[in-house]
């Protein structure tokens, strides 16, 4: 058996290991992580075993050598949004506070599978945002330029260039003719569960305790400092506490007496029956909130806008289903005959400006990571990277310096869409 340097007694996955295990009846595989009992006390506790919590734990151990860490997850690892999203990875933001952060994230994505020795099925198939008017083209040209200034790749495609790549779009739709698109070739998709599992395995092998079925129900404070958390498995002490509870951020922050600039709203996603290779990129519609890609199994993966009301239900309403299907047929008329297999919902932490928060809080030793809206999957590596830095050093990471909690009261919102303080419009 081969082990990975720096990762303790963890089995190295490779083509050879699959072959070898196959020959011995696949009886030699071992669990990818332990199931430890919680200790009495940790240096750092992270609430939430989604992508961000797990990545944070991994980088705490790897970048900062802090391994006396627990991730507390109320369900099973990856049961939240990290396992519910539509897996799009991109770095095509306009604003200065955002783009360098997402650019770093994309670079981490590019080396992630080798680093974690885990197949996250990272596929840089390109992301195309369609435009349908002169005004939209100008806005995309500006965004593309901003991306390039931040060192990212961006290409403004004309109508015929898009047609070559995605011939089946409704180019001559009388209301929303396709004029072209903004392409980021390095963007694409990654298998969402694979990312969670890869980080989980990497963190566990470095000594992090991943504790599932452990709901945090209270935050214990003494003299203004956090000393630990009440959980469904008893009290667990810590020096520092990091919250990475995504859609439930408001609920856990409330345990420390905080109200957040966040509303929890439901976002739905859909997958169709498997069809032959059809759509090679991720394509987003510019005339409505809608996007589509194709999974390796052949299913079309697509989604649209929020249901537009507060919800913790992890399921949405039929009116939104209908409008998403309408957008699908408007962008790609031929999909009208494809059958939808499954639909589901996730609870999004919609912030008041559409951008995330990675910061200290007014409570000593309590740190906050939230406000990812519906774009937090692509942020997973950089979010973990920056949140680990904050938890380890107490200082904000350079790349996350705009993601401050007090930016709302100071008037430094990072509002990509320019919608103002209406959480569900971002």
């Amino acid at each position, binding site marked *: 058996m081969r082990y990975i340097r720096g990762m303790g007694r963890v089995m190295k996955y490779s083509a050879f290991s699959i072959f070898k295990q196959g020959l011995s009846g696949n009886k030699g595989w071992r669990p990818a992580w332990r199931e430890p009992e919680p200790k009495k006390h940790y240096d750092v506790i992270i609430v939430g075993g989604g992508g961000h919590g797990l990545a944070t734990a991994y980088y705490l151990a790897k970048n900062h050598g802090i391994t006396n860490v627990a991730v507390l997850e109320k369900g099973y690892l990856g049961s939240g949004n990290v396992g519910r999203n539509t897996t799009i990875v991109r770095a095509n933001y306009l604003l200065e506070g955002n783009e360098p952060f997402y650019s770093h994230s994309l670079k981490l994505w590019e080396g992630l599978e080798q680093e974690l020795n885990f197949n996250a099925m990272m596929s840089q198939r390109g992301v195309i945002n369609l435009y349908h008017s002169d005004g939209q083209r100008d806005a995309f040209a500006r965004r593309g330029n901003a991306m390039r200034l931040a060192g990212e790749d961006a290409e403004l495609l004309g109508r015929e260039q898009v047609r070559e790549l995605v011939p089946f779009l409704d180019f001559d739709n009388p209301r929303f003719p396709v004029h072209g698109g903004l392409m980021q070739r390095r963007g694409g998709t990654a298998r969402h569960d694979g990312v969670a599992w890869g980080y989980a395995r990497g963190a566990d092998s470095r000594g992090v305790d991943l504790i599932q079925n452990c709901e945090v129900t209270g935050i214990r404070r003494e003299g203004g400092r956090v000393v630990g958390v009440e959980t469904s498995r008893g009290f667990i002490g810590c020096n520092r506490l990091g919250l990475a509870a995504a859609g*439930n951020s*408001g*609920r856990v922050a409330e345990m420390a007496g905080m*109200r*957040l*600039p*966040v*509303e*929890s709203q439901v976002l739905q996603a859909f997958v169709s029956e498997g069809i032959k290779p059809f759509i090679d990129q991720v394509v987003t519609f510019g005339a409505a909130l809608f996007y589509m890609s194709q999974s390796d199994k052949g299913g079309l993966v697509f989604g649209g806008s929020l249901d*537009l*009301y*507060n*919800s*913790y*239900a992890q399921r949405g*309403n039929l*009116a939104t289903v209908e409008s998403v299907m309408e957008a699908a047929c408007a962008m790609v008329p031929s999909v009208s005959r494809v059958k939808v297999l499954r639909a589901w919902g996730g609870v999004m932490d919609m912030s*008041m400006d559409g951008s995330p928060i990675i910061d200290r809080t007014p409570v000593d030793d309590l740190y906050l990571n939230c406000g990812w809206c519906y774009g937090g999957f692509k942020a997973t590596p950089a979010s973990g990277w920056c949140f680990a830095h904050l938890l380890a050093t107490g200082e904000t990471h350079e790349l996350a310096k705009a993601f401050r909690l007090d930016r*709302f*009261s100071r008037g430094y919102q990072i509002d990509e869409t320019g919608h103002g*303080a*209406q*959480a*569900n419009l971002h």
Partner: protein
Amino acid sequence: MASLITCPHCGVRPKEEFTIRGDAGPVRPAPEAKFAAWDAYVHLRDNVRGVMKEHWQHSGGCRRWLVVERDTFNHAVHSVVDAAEFAQASAAKPGRKAAPAKPAKAASKGRGKA
């Protein structure tokens, strides 16, 4: 969510006729109120998990603004009243004006359990 909503003016109507604006909890502070009160009103939310009061508009009907009491965990709709009546009723309650940034009554009362 319930597919039928009882508008106090129009009676039982399909949910799709209504537009949901959001939390009816935050109360607009007086123009000269402290900055912190305005910040809280514009940005901070209770983000209730459980029974919450919301502003809805019957945009496909009488176009009146309504206050709908709805559970954000199981989507059940409990009550619908006209927003003007709701505002009058809440203004009549003592203590309402003094603490504009505080959570609405319904919000703290109905917090979900599960």
